[in-house]
């Protein structure tokens, strides 16, 4: 049913449709509305779950860890400082191969403390062994949560749905909430294979030594890579049943004959697509590619979509301090590995909720095409883009 919903509310509806028996969370902006809605659903008897108000995100992650190991579907959500507080447990969940599903309402990481959107939080967790899907709309958030349980349970690996804080979590958009029966068909009940059960006693999380630790960790990497196929397949199964799709791993926009391609993730892609349309009208051969799946890194899919590009512009909302853009670095490596030497310009912007306005995007495009050498890593700061500042606003003001 199509409804006008706040993003967080839509997420809660999607979670409800997946019947998690245990929900554990700790509040942090901009994730709070998600868990408030879930708490209300439980209180109203619309969702039959144990709702655990944990005393920290660290505990919330641990509660869902225990719940999934005991054979239930579980859900948690966090952001920013909370996500980082979970770090130790999130690595542990992946190492234990537990199909946990969570939402990260992407938010900047302090210091300085800032509640607004960028991708630094989930990007910092990129090595944890979690599948990470970055969504571009609230409809995609809803659909991806339903897909996430199927992916997680098929692969016995955890999935993090990353959605832009405020830009998505607090935005009202018309969203189609699927019928329960349709979701039940898509997502059948699940039985965890290594459940804690006195009838079949198993030891989970025991010690390992140098003679086998590496094999466990290598298996995690290999199994992560294998999920690429599954993510793709679950995506196409979903579109077959529900008539909506997001490309599985990557989503192209007017890529056919594109020579200059914008690459990015999250909700920014809407503004990028508008710019593409505008530049196409001016006769420019431009396109866009959205990275939906960032972990595992879909190198082959990226190379396939980008092999005929002449220049690539990566716009990202996070960086590795002292190294530069994360997506750009990984993309360059993938292209190099495929024997392609396409210049990749890297722009870092939108940090801490700063708007990336259409005029800033246009400015990036012109900066990129007028530069001979590839731009290694450029922060879109106020001075750089001063002449494009026209309609930039202070984050958070007016909404």
């Amino acid at each position, binding site marked *: 049913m199509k409804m006008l919903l706040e993003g967080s509310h839509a997420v809660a509806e999607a979670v409800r449709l997946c019947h998690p028996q245990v929900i554990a969370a700790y509040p942090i902006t901009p994730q709070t509305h998600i868990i408030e809605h879930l708490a209300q659903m439980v209180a109203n008897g619309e969702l039959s779950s144990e709702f655990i108000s944990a005393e920290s995100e660290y505990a919330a992650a*641990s509660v869902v860890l225990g719940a999934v*190991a005991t054979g239930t579907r579980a859900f948690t959500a966090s952001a920013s400082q909370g996500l980082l507080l979970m770090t130790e447990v999130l690595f542990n969940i992946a190492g234990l191969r537990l199909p946990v599903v969570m939402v990260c309402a992407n938010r900047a990481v302090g210091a300085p403390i800032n509640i607004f959107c960028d991708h630094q939080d989930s990007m910092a967790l990129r090595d944890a062994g979690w599948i990470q899907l970055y969504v571009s709309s609230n409809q995609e958030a809803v659909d991806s949560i339903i897909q996430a349980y199927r992916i997680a349970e098929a692969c016995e690996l955890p999935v993090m749905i990353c959605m832009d804080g405020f830009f998505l979590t607090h935005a009202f958009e018309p969203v189609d909430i699927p019928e329960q029966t349709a979701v039940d068909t898509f997502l059948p009940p699940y039985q965890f294979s290594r459940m804690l059960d006195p009838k079949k006693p198993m030891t989970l999380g025991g010690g390992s030594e140098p003679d086998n630790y590496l094999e466990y960790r290598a298996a995690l990497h290999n199994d992560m890579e294998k999920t690429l196929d599954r993510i793709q397949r679950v995506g196409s199964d979903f579109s077959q049943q529900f008539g909506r799709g997001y490309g599985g791993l990557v989503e192209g926009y007017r890529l056919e004959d594109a020579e200059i391609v914008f690459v990015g993730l999250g909700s920014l892609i809407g503004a990028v697509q508008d710019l593409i349309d505008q530049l196409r009208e001016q006769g420019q051969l431009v396109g866009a590619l959205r990275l939906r799946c960032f972990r595992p890194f879909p190198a082959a899919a990226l190379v396939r979509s980008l092999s005929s590009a002449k220049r690539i512009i990566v716009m990202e909302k996070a960086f590795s301090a002292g190294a530069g853009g994360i997506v750009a670095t990984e993309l360059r490596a993938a292209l190099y590995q495929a024997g392609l030497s396409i210049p990749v310009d890297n722009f870092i912007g939108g940090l801490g909720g700063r708007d990336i306005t259409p005029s800033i995007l246009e400015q990036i495009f012109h900066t990129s095409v007028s530069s001979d050498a590839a731009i290694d890593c450029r922060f879109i700061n106020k001075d750089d883009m001063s002449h494009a500042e026209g309609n930039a606003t202070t984050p958070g003001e007016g909404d």
Partner: protein
Amino acid sequence: MDTRDQFRTNVLTSGHRACAGCGEAMAARMVTDLIGPDAIYINATGCLQVFTTHNQQSAWQAPWMHSVFANSAAVASGVEAALRARGRSTPVVVQAGDGGTFDIGLQCLSGMIERGHDVLFVCYDNEAYMNTGVQRSSSTPHAVRTTTSPPGRLSEGKHHLKKDVISIIAAHHMPYAATATVAYFPDLKAKVEKAMSLKGPRFLQVLSPCPLGWDHDAALTVQISRLAVETGLFPLIEMEYGDVTGVMRLARQRPIEDYLHLQGRFKHLFGHQNDNGNVEIRHLQALADARIQRYGLLDAETEWTTASAAQTERHGRGGYSISAVKQEVSS
């Protein structure tokens, strides 16, 4: 299908890698055998986890999971919530060291109790971080030598008092919190059984000497834990909803030196010209005296009658026959 070994029903089986005389192994064996294999065990990082699940091996014959050091109470909360959601009533038990209880795990433990999870949390208190090589914890008593509270020209060992964790736990006003030790099996048994007969969050602190960390003869584990009780340093008590509801009274108080002398971790306090050490020993004696007073361990009721001896037997003193108790009282 039931895949359990029908012949070996003990939960913690032999062949694990604990040191000789390990109080924690002894305590865990007693506690888990009393609870049995029809339970789910969550273990914090620490010696018990390391010596029972070494490198792809496991000494556990019950469902057992280790996640990380600090989160065992939260993992157990999730396990219990999942069981509730699935309509199961399998008991959930946490096992953690004093580090995983008093220090790094305290927040998760407090959260678990506050939310009322139906979990028994057992702390094997060996008064230091033993797994990492005997560093001080907030459970390490005053003046003890550990690798991070070393005695030196300017120091007589640990500067700070042992945290009164049972009072912190009991202040959550939960159904049951008790202390026990491996020297008094009937007492430990009664407490485990009582804990298992109750619903909600329950807590057991089991003093578990560590021959390596306490630097004592591996054959003296039981004797030393008994002395910890008899000196008054480690009162055996029960608390229900925040109030003390049971104490194991002492026939007489043993001087603190009887306990300290047997352990290398106190050795630096003794010596001919060691005035500072003497001050610390007097301080430890005063702490023991205060605990005896606080819990009334030597009150008039210590007039032993057959009935009170039987009562004591209920509370422990397992190694003593009633006549031995009487003899001790009269001496």
